[in-house]
């Protein structure tokens, strides 16, 4: 189903530059994208609240404002593909299909959590879904992604490994080493740089002499482009184009998604490094408001449908909180379980 031409809203899905490669953008898929983004948004809003209630502790890094990136990219993946992310990975986990109950239980540190509660917000894992964390060392997952892709390639698998990281990670030596290795060995990796303009309080101009991450990637011979990370359709289209190429054997690619985090870096951030106006400007072009407004303007989303989506999400989140509340903490006696493998694998 072709999408009706946009009216007066800013976003123009028709004009999207991946016209030919555009994935199947029917109404139900757009509803699905919206729902996924809303799920993440509301899940995290709930988490923020639970944090003030001290149900969730430690560091909590919200993805609010950046949902289009994880949701868009994840659409192009199959279960055989592998995913790695950062400490800001609730969105990726949910978009990858992890059970929200388990994710919320993880936030609570409960044994029913996706990592038995041991990892918390920053370390959500699900090896069944090939979701390999949740890494709290900036750029720490990039070498792992190279290795996972190498293993897939050596085993003749057609999988893609997707590795998400912030633009702050680009300054780390691991970025450099990993891109070079991936290209040298023509590995099936999609690097996704979530360029939200800041690494904690450090603006990109303070951390990179070359501020176009996709240009940096090209200097390693990777195919790379920048995409509007606030536009889930653009993200999906670009990711699909790249994943298809990677599956055809074209080697690693990098997608730079221009985005913004609406909240502080973590719950401790006083945000002295940016103005409220700047935040407001970005919020106005947020990924959810953008898609939702466009759908509504084009009569592709009734208020009843939206209502339905919202209430399904609310129910899911309530269920997840309930699940997490009810869940047990891991017994202290199991503290050392799985430090090493019990028997041969």
């Amino acid at each position, binding site marked *: 189903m072709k999408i009706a031409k946009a009216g007066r809203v800013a976003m123009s899905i028709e004009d999207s530059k991946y016209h030919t490669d555009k994935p199947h953008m029917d109404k139900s898929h757009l509803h699905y994208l919206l729902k996924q983004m809303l799920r993440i948004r509301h899940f995290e809003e709930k988490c923020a609240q639970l944090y003030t209630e001290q149900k969730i502790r430690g560091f909590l890094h919200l993805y609010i404002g950046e949902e289009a990136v994880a949701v868009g990219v994840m659409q192009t993946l199959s279960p055989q593909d592998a995913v790695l992310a950062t400490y800001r990975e609730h969105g990726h986990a949910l978009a990858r299909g992890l059970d929200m109950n388990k994710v919320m239980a993880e936030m609570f540190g409960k044994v029913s959590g996706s990592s038995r*509660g*041991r*990892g918390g917000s920053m370390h959500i894992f699900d090896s069944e879904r090939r979701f390999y964390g949740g890494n709290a060392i900036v750029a720490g997952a990039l070498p792992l992604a190279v290795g996972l892709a190498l293993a897939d390639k050596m085993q003749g698998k057609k999988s893609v490994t997707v590795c998400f990281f912030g633009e702050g990670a680009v300054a*780390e030596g691991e970025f450099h080493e990993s891109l070079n290795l991936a290209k040298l060995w023509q590995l099936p990796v999609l690097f996704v740089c979530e360029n939200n303009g800041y*690494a904690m309080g450090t603006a990109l101009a303070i951390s990179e002499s070359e501020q176009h991450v996709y240009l940096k990637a090209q200097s390693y011979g990777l195919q790379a482009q920048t995409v509007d990370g606030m536009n889930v359709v653009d993200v999906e289209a670009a990711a699909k184009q790249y994943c298809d190429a990677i599956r055809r054997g074209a080697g690693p690619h990098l997608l730079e998604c221009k985005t913004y985090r609406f909240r502080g870096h973590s719950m401790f951030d006083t945000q*002295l490094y940016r103005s409220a106006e700047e935040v407001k400007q970005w919020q106005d072009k947020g990924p959810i408001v953008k898609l939702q407004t466009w759908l509504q303007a084009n009569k592709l989303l009734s208020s009843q449908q939206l209502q339905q989506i919202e209430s399904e999400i609310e129910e899911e989140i309530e269920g997840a909180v309930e699940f997490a509340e009810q869940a047990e903490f891991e017994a202290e006696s199991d503290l050392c379980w799985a430090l090493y493998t019990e028997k041969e694998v």
Partner: protein
Amino acid sequence: MSADTANSNKPAKRQENPSLTYREAMRLAMEEAMLADERVFLIGEDVGNYGGCYAVSKGLSTEFGAQRIIDAPLSESGFVGAGVGAAIGGMRPIVEVMTVNFSLLALDQIVNNAATLRHMSGGQFSIPLVIRMATGAGKQLAAQHSHSLENWYAHVPGIKVLAPATVADARYMLAMALADPDPVILFEHVMLYNNSEALPQPEDCPEMHQAALREEGTDISLITYGGSLGKTLQAASILAKQGISAEVIDLRCLRPLDTATIFSSVEKTKRVLVVDEGWRTGSLAGEICALIAEHCFWSLDAPPQRLCSIEVPIPYPQHLEQAVVPKVEQIVAMATESVVKLDTAQ
């Protein structure tokens, strides 16, 4: 973040002996150093615009500008190595590596350059570098953000390692480190930043390399440092109520170790428990037990004991995190056992 009570424009306040937090003391020390010596500058991730990941340098960039409070990109190896180079080049850099966890990325520069170049070049130059980093567990930050690796640094000849555990030491040890012509690494335990104390006079502070007797006692020596000092002092006061007189030694300087103070305490008390948040095997506590076994063997009335962290990546949930690190009750129990066992043996 609590308000800043340190303010260079009101020096009078300082003489009133105000109480400060550990965080404020550390900032005051940096401010003072930067005012006193224009070769001093601070560099690290988010030390400027953000104010420091633990808010230690908050306000300094306003006072000194981006030329002296330098926000570095995420490039630990790069900017730590740059600190080494700048020190060789005549500056007095303070490099903040947010936490010891990330310092692994800079270890090569620290071990193979900072610690090595002076000796290996035949003593041609010094490297007056200070590296500050947060360390330790307690904030539920999980396995990759809760390391205590002071022992690794204390292993390396060519550097000195400090672990200020009190507000006074936060206030005065940085100055000592900056006055030292060689690379000094300063560990700030994350659980200390909000601690508040009235400051003693600088003259009342021990020298940089000296351990401090935080509590005098006769029955057992409790030796500790950094984030475990508070727990150990608590344990000592519980022990006192039980009639056990515990001496508490705060190492302060982890390299070189003040063995004279350690040995004379143990010779007196004849029993020792070392409390250390590092993982047990290969811990600094192990080193201290070994030193004591070697040097005080004939004085000991009980085996040297140590209480360390359980050897496991530190989990996120509070009950498990607390299960890993040393606890007050454990200190009390182990100290009591050590003393009581002796009584039995007699």
